[in-house]
């Protein structure tokens, strides 16, 4: 997994960023709002929850707002977008032969360890995204581009949180010292 050779195959980040910026603008122009991701995962999770324990969903005001009674949590643009993201990611990977069952992990740890931390990180991400009412795609990118104060504060908090902890968990990612 030589980083340098991988790099040659990926787009220049400035170009990728510029294209993403154009897409984000088109999203605002055509639909009136930006991009999103965590909201979609959230709604799918709630939809499943609604199938399994509908009475519980109806009783919680937070859940009921999305899926109470007849309300279908999946009838929302962000769910469609999340599906699109997966298809698009797959298409890009397929085109470049990057669709492969494997685990990306830092050189100092095993895949198993990586899985455990990925799961743990995912839990925090899922929880944090709901608390912040968005994730890096929705809040930071979209909210940031249209100058929302909350989005910028959020963005800096994410970077701060990541950088603050990075040194302590460097074994997860850094090559051997």
């Amino acid at each position, binding site marked *: 997994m030589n980083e340098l050779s991988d790099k040659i195959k990926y787009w220049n980040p*400035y170009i990728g960023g510029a294209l993403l910026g154009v897409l984000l603008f088109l999203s605002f122009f055509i639909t009136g709002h930006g991009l999103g991701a965590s909201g979609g995962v959230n709604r799918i999770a709630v939809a499943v929850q609604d199938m399994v324990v509908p009475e519980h969903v109806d009783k919680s005001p937070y859940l009921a707002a999305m899926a109470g009674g007849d309300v279908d949590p999946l009838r929302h643009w*962000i769910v469609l977008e*999340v599906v699109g993201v*997966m298809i698009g990611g*797959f298409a890009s990977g397929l085109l470049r032969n990057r669709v492969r069952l494997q685990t990306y992990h830092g050189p100092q740890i095993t895949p198993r360890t990586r*899985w455990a931390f990925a799961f743990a*990180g995912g839990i925090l991400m899922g929880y944090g995204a709901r608390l912040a009412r968005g994730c890096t795609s929705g809040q930071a990118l979209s909210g940031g581009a249209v100058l929302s104060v*909350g989005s910028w504060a959020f963005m800096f908090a994410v970077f701060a949180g990541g950088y603050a902890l990075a040194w302590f968990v460097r074994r997860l990612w850094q090559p051997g010292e």
Partner: protein
Amino acid sequence: MAPFDLTATLGVTGSYLVYLGIGFGFGFILESSGFGDSRKLAAQFYFRELRVLKVMFTAIVVAMLLVFWASALGLLDYADIMVKETWLWPGIVGGLIMGVGFILGGYCPGTSLVSVATLKVDGMFFLLGHVVGVLAFGETVGYINEFWNSSYMGRFILPELFGLDIGVVVFLVVCLALAMFLGFGWIQRLIYGRGDPE
């Protein structure tokens, strides 16, 4: 003037196709930029690779310029587009939690989708964790309801915060992004003696 009412123009199915298309573009660009790889994402926090910073801020700056130029030319009504409302402290605390989740998990929600789409097992574990986290929030939100709904400031934008014109803030944001590219690059060279492997 944009934005237009999508459902009225294209019908519900049509509008859903548009969202699928937008999502497709989003996922495609993310994967093409290497964001399906957790190692590249995490490398940002060690200054080893500045991909995340560059893609994010370039995207924000480009989108921002396009949005406000379109607004200036009467093509798009800024008042009609969705600006994420501000709940200041839940946003900051949630952001900190997500920062920790980012460095532990190696993904953010959007990139994890791309990772799963290319069959990366660590992405799958992350997404599973994400679902658990989301459900956990749903079950416990009752206890933190007051906090979750605190510090609501509505549609609060940077120009209002600083008392500056939109155009001035846009310019300052561009300057900030460029300064960050330069600054982070300088730190990177300091630590590793090289710039981003291009």
